[in-house]
């Protein structure tokens, strides 16, 4: 039995947070605040996106400032499919992931040739390019966004119009994303990615085609983030160019850093903390960014290891 219990404070924390996510529909029902279930659903979607970004940012050291692009791609694929009356998730979802993979492959191939600041800027500019494409797409609502009238039809007894089904689909995807990332990071592939982050020349000298590994990680992260976009479109029943604006990408990076870069569960904690903070602050004042901006600055200056850092130094990948 003891093998099933979390082994460290860090693992306990993750287990408690995930248990809270799992139990939220019950808790929200008990205190009669169904709104909390909504917030948690959104937070978990952002958590999936943050986990995907952490794969390249935290483990791979690639500062992509255009990651929200994939969130938007997932959302728009669902939206545009639905616009043309294609509601089956069996079509929509794989299509969204394939499109994200192709775009990530192309954009990754272009941007990974560059280093440092150039990489930050080029990922940002490529995402902005797609942002403007979305803004100028009058057929799909341009600036005003695209309203999605029907949620994806999953079949097999699942109905995303049922709040509980939708909630646990998202929760399941979050668990899947965490499990997948954990396995990936611990695998040979993951070790190469982490090795490249600490010293690319060394990995090259050891005979690894580092660009290919980095590109593969870039594509995987894009696909995972697109999945978050698909879920988001189903929750909001709406997608707009805002979803892929560069400030969204900035928020995503902040979630990863706030939670703790390169830790498996950090981005989840970061995404939750980000939204709780936004939620609480915006109750006090509509100008909550006045507090939030300096808070971000203080985190960078004084709490660089994020929430994960509260649990001491890590000795492993997770």
């Amino acid at each position, binding site marked *: 039995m003891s093998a099933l219990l979390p082994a460290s404070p860090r693992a306990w924390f993750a287990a408690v947070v995930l248990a809270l996510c799992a139990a939220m529909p019950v808790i929200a029902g008990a205190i009669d605040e169904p709104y909390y279930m909504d917030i948690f659903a959104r937070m978990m979607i952002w958590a999936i996106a943050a986990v995907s970004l952490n794969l390249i*940012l935290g483990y791979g050291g690639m*500062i992509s*400032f255009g990651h929200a692009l994939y969130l938007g791609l997932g959302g728009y694929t669902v939206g545009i499919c639905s616009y043309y009356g294609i509601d089956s998730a069996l079509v929509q979802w794989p299509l969204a992931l394939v499109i994200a993979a192709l775009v990530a492959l192309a954009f990754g191939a*272009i941007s990974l*040739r*560059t*280093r*440092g*600041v*150039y990489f*930050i*800027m*080029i990922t*940002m*500019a*490529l995402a*902005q*390019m797609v942002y*403007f*494409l979305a*803004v*100028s*797409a*009058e*057929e799909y609502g341009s600036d005003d966004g695209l309203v999605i009238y029907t949620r994806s039809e999953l079949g097999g007894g699942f109905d995303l119009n049922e709040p509980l089904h939708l909630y646990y689909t998202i929760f399941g995807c979050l668990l899947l994303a965490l499990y997948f990332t954990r396995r990936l990071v611990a695998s040979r592939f993951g070790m190469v990615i982490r090795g490249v982050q600490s010293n690319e020349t060394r990995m090259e000298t050891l005979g690894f085609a580092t660009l290919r590994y980095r590109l593969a990680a870039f594509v995987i992260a894009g696909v995972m983030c697109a999945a978050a976009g698909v879920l988001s479109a189903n929750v909001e029943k709406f997608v707009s160019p805002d979803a892929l604006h*560069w*400030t969204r990408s*900035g928020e995503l*990076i*902040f979630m990863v*850093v706030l939670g703790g870069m390169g830790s498996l569960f950090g981005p989840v904690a970061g995404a939750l903390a980000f939204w709780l903070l936004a939620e609480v602050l915006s109750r006090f004042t509509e*100008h*909550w*960014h*006045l507090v*939030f*901006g*300096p*808070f*971000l*600055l203080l985190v*960078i*200056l004084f709490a*660089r290891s994020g929430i994960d850092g509260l649990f001491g130094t890590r000795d492993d990948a997770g």
Partner: protein
Amino acid sequence: MDWVLLIEQCLNGFQLGVLLFLIAAGLTLTFGIMDFVNLAHGSLYMLGAFFCATLTLWTDSFLLGVLLGLPAVLAAGMLIEVTTLRTLYQRHHLDHVLATFGLILFFNELVQVIWPLDGLRVPFPPAFDGSVPLILGIEYSAFRLLIIVVGLAVAAGLWFLVARTRIGMLVRAGAANPAMVSALGVNIRLLFTFVFGLGAALAGLAGMLVLPILGANSGMGEQIIILAFVVVVVGGIGSIRGAFIAALVTGLIDTLGRSFLDVLLLAFLPTNAAEAAGPALSSMLIYIFMVVVLFLRPQGLFPPGR
């Protein structure tokens, strides 16, 4: 093709390019010298517009608004540098990006608290309200012409400052080897603060110059900062000459693309396809331009020689 329209749009593109240069010059200097990525540079552009708007409405003179606004932006920039950004120079680029992202959120909200929610507008200064005749009987907005002239003059002044004065020599030396300059007895921290303030003043000036045309709004910096980054990256990080050329090319491509791309597409595509693709493609044009440049030259067009 309408030649008058073409020349007019070329001038508009030139004017956008000059503005982009004013913003990009500060960015590329802080990149090149402090190795610092400043996303909040757009906020200084915004602050410039708001300061100038307030001062213009107080003094009833746009010229006074600019003359008093410039030192104000300069001071604001130096204050930001001394209080927060200075401690970040030694950190990773990621920290620069996030910290200045926090500053953006702060300043966007701050101007909404201080000034009216829908921003401020000022009228064109009377002397430049109207159009002037150019060659071939073309009339062009006097104020936009003023922007071009002021921008070019500032560019020339900046070139003189960096290439021909002692302080410019220190700036160039600081870019090449800050530790050595510091060892030679130069107060490098002061030099950094000066460079940051200079960049802030230039960005602020750009904000002031567009003020009568666009007004001052919260979030106006985000629109232009990405374009300025494109300019800096295309020109080669740290290169003022590169930023100047890239800014003019970017301004021209963007403006001409928006006005003539659909006409051009009509030659190849059926009408409805061209009308649909025109706006989409023209708004993506400069990013495509950047991608092509970086694909061919990952260090930009004019990487500063080290």
